[in-house]
């Protein structure tokens, strides 16, 4: 657990320095008759972030985080749960470009319900069909928010003709 504290602080410290550098693309000082430059606000806040990270790192070296003991940041089971969640979502969002929301949604449902939850195919298939239909009517017809459809777009033309 203690190592995770240090790694996070270093990673965030690097990100803070990057933000400072990026903010400095705009003036960070005082501009006569205009006030603070456009980059001043994010620059000094990023500097604050960096100071906080240094503060955390100093505390780490002084043994502040010893109270965590030897508890691991993530045990094997937790890591598996986390990776399953994060990777399945990443694959789902990535696949939206290709098969659209209405292709990706059933895939995620099938993955979670059938392969992780071991629910029967009948329940899985019902939700995998019903949920995208409800999503379509709620977002596209009622809210008129068009969701990305990727290569499946032409399949929706007849539905547009009927409902929109």
């Amino acid at each position: 657990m203690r190592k995770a504290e240090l790694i996070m602080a270093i990673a965030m410290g690097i990100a803070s320095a990057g933000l400072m550098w990026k903010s400095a693309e705009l003036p960070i000082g005082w501009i006569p008759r205009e006030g603070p430059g456009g980059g001043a606000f994010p620059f000094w806040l990023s500097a604050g972030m960096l100071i906080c990270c240094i503060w955390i790192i100093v505390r780490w070296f002084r043994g502040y985080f010893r109270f965590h003991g030897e508890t691991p940041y993530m045990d094997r089971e937790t890591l598996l749960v986390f990776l399953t969640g994060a990777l399945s979502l990443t694959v789902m969002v990535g696949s939206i470009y290709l098969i659209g929301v209405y292709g990706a949604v059933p895939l995620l449902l099938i993955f979670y319900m059938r392969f992780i939850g071991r629910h029967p195919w009948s329940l899985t298939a019902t939700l995998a069909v019903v949920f995208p239909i409800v999503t379509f009517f709620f977002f596209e017809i009622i809210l008129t928010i068009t969701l990305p459809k990727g290569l499946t777009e032409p399949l929706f033309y007849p539905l547009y003709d009927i409902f929109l």
Partner: protein
Amino acid sequence: MEIINHLFDGFLIAFEPLNLILIVVGVTVGLFIGAMPGLGSVNGVAILLPMTFLVPPTSAVIFLGAIYYGAMYGGAISSIMLGIPGASTAVATTFDGRPMARSGQADAALIAAATASFVGGTLSVVLFTMFAPPLAKVALAFGSPEEFALMLLAFATFIGLGGDDIPKTFFSIFIGLVLSAVGLDIVSGEPRLIFFDIPGFFHGVNFLVLAIGIYGIGEILWTLETNKGEVEVSRLDLTFKKFVANMIRLKETIVTMLMGSFLGFFVGILPAAGATPGSLMAYGVAKTMDRNPETFGKGNIKGVAAPESANNAASTGSMLPMLTLGIPGSPTTAILLGGMVIWGLEPGPRLFTDQTEFVWGLIASLYAANLLSLLVNLAFIPAFIWVLRIPFTILAPIIFILCIVGGYAPTQDMHDVWLMLLFGVVGYLMRKLDYPMAPTVLAIVLGPLAETSLRQSLLISHGSAAIFVERPIAAAIMACALILLFLPLLKFFVGKRKK
């Protein structure tokens, strides 16, 4: 008299058919969301906010307000029936609610929680009605320096009263403020913090993307880890005769409910405090006041009534600074505030003069939402129990999908969906190391207002920071902010001296 007239007009708005339907739907949805382990009002409001673009702003805020209330009521259900708090605001309810359920008194605990929530919610709306208009009048005299001082006070409250690790809280506030600066510079219009020249950054980082990422995706990852989807639901045996007997039993909790309501309301007003510390404090006071404090933690009904009245009262209290000063009192009200900006409303004291219909419609709807929450809560208890039995392997993907679609809807840009995913994952990893996430959401909402008021103030004063101490109101608020900022440091030295 003027207040009563406004309130009457507000009721006419709240009881319009559309708004009444939205209140009923909102409290029902909120109750279900609140009852789910790991999900609370903030998750419900964040995930469902994009769905309110269909209705007028007044109806939208009434709907979200109803979800907020419903979720506060619902949080107790999983605390009592599962022993897992529906949200952090219902943690204290678990202390006595769960032992009551285990000893076969789940019905008494659920009825006490619902009734206490109603008492807390209603009393706090009465207090809100009395305090909001005069506070808004005072706030009308505020200029940019006072506004910035208020923003600083909101952030300082998180440092002084938040109870989290100090450098991590500072970090969370700073990162939220930096994220709010992405896009175009508010004064010069020049592009700012456009990473890798990705066009999606030009429209900035929508607060909703961050809120759904943290409170939707991050929260589900957290719940998947902590619960592993396996929970034990207590048995519930509720008949009409038992219901009446339980209602009569509540006589002994009247003083506790009143105490919880007043305490919760005033704690809720403080930006960083909100419902969780409010309910914990009420529990502590109820225990101290009781003749038999040793019975607390073993199934004392007052241990359910105190936190439940307090957390509902605090949820109303947190709306007071949001509507009158433009400063949210809790993460949920921070999201509501962001929603108001999206709907084209300017949060702050002018709302009371420029948007009376909106403000009083909302206040009146809170009275209605309270009553309906009580009725829906009591009527649907068996349905909530059924929902609690739904395996998390079904709920998790559905919530994930709602998050992704909800994150896409406001800007209709896949860039925001990726950002939301990133925030969810990083937020989860940071939360595991006790980085508080609520200040980040508060900061991204208040960031643009804070930057504008700071830059305007410095322009007025030609770069002199003395403007924040020369004006009496700004100076007083600044002094409070500084006291809160240095409070942890003071505690540290006092503690060291005692040792």
